[in-house]
């Protein structure tokens, strides 16, 4: 069994987009109950336990449901992934290798392009989720060894 803890900073009002967590491509359904309640605080720790996977090497978080009605002059909605712990070992600076692939509505893209902005399809690191899209972070199992080898090979 593995434990994954997500440390999030949530910036949104009661009426809000949603998050979906997936490990190795399998959506974690038990979290959806937590996320459908109204008990959001600005900082949230979402604790999960995974018993049916031997190894973990891919974590995805999907941010969806943000639309024109939710975004107003007074309020925007975004999520900052502060950290992820796998079996109590924190990823910390390794999250710099994560990516965020956004799915921006076409009329937003058109509007931004006319304003002269450059729009990349994938952002790295992907820890700041300000648009609908998918955070993706890949590593080797076991994580403790991956982290050590990554420390070794930074040069």
């Amino acid at each position, binding site marked *: 069994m593995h434990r994954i803890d997500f*440390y999030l900073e949530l910036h949104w009002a009661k009426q809000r987009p949603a998050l979906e967590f997936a490990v190795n491509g399998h959506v974690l359904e038990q979290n959806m109950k937590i996320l459908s309640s109204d008990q959001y605080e600005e900082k949230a720790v979402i604790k999960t336990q995974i018993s049916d996977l031997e190894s973990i090497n891919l974590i995805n978080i999907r941010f969806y449901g943000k639309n024109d009605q939710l975004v107003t002059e007074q309020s925007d909605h975004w999520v900052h992934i*502060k*950290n992820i712990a796998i*079996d*109590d*070992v*924190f990823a*910390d*600076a390794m*999250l*710099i290798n994560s990516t965020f692939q956004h799915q921006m509505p076409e009329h937003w893209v058109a509007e931004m392009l006319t304003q002269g902005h450059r729009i990349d399809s994938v952002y790295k690191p992907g820890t700041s989720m300000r648009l609908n899209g998918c955070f993706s972070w890949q590593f080797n199992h076991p994580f*403790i060894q991956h*982290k*050590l*080898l990554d*420390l*070794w090979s*930074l*040069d």
Partner: protein
Amino acid sequence: MVTRLIPPTAFTQQFFDMDFESYQYLLDDLIDGDHPATCDLPVVPIEGFDLDALDRIYQYCRSVCSGDFKTVKSQIMYSDWCFQPRSQGWTEIVIKAQPMLMKGRDSNLDYNLEADADNHLVELCRQFFPDWWDRFFCLKILKMAPDGWVNPHRDIYVDNFRLCNFWMPLHDFPTTLKVFPMGWLAHRLGNMYLFNQRRFPHAVKNSEQEDRIVLIGKFYQDLVPQQIVEQFLINKKKHLQQWQ
């Protein structure tokens, strides 16, 4: 008042507990140069330092200036990415400060800037290294409190100092420094250990009930003393015998 230290993080504790034997293959392709600045080996011992002079520095640090040790800043600096402590019980006195190469570049690198040792301690160190003072890039005394620890890390600088860094125990204590992928350094009092701290992830732990005090420093890469280079050439074959 006794301050209770936070126990090591899971990552640090696993590092201390792990057996690195299956990672020895990483040592196969290390560059074997003929100068500390060009050689990629992990640790090379330099022998024959004066134990009495070492003891004078130790006793002075332990008694007279034991209150002058300051918390190492990396222990208290948290960033967005690292919100767990990176060390506990780790304090230092800067004997000779490194040049301000990095000031203002990044807050994480902006430490160890000012020498804060008193004159007598500086004089003791000058006597210990009589001809080498201008060859030091920096020189510090580090203290690790009982149950203190430092998490696995590498020391990244603008330049790759390789074996121009050194680590030197000031008194006799059990193994304290663990280096990936070799293991615990089986050090001996009176030896200076040239230590490739940029290439090799390392962590420190003090499981005894007494402070551990060590001297660390760096030589300028082109000013490594001739005596050190000569011993380095003789002793570098011993680098695989230093571990347990």
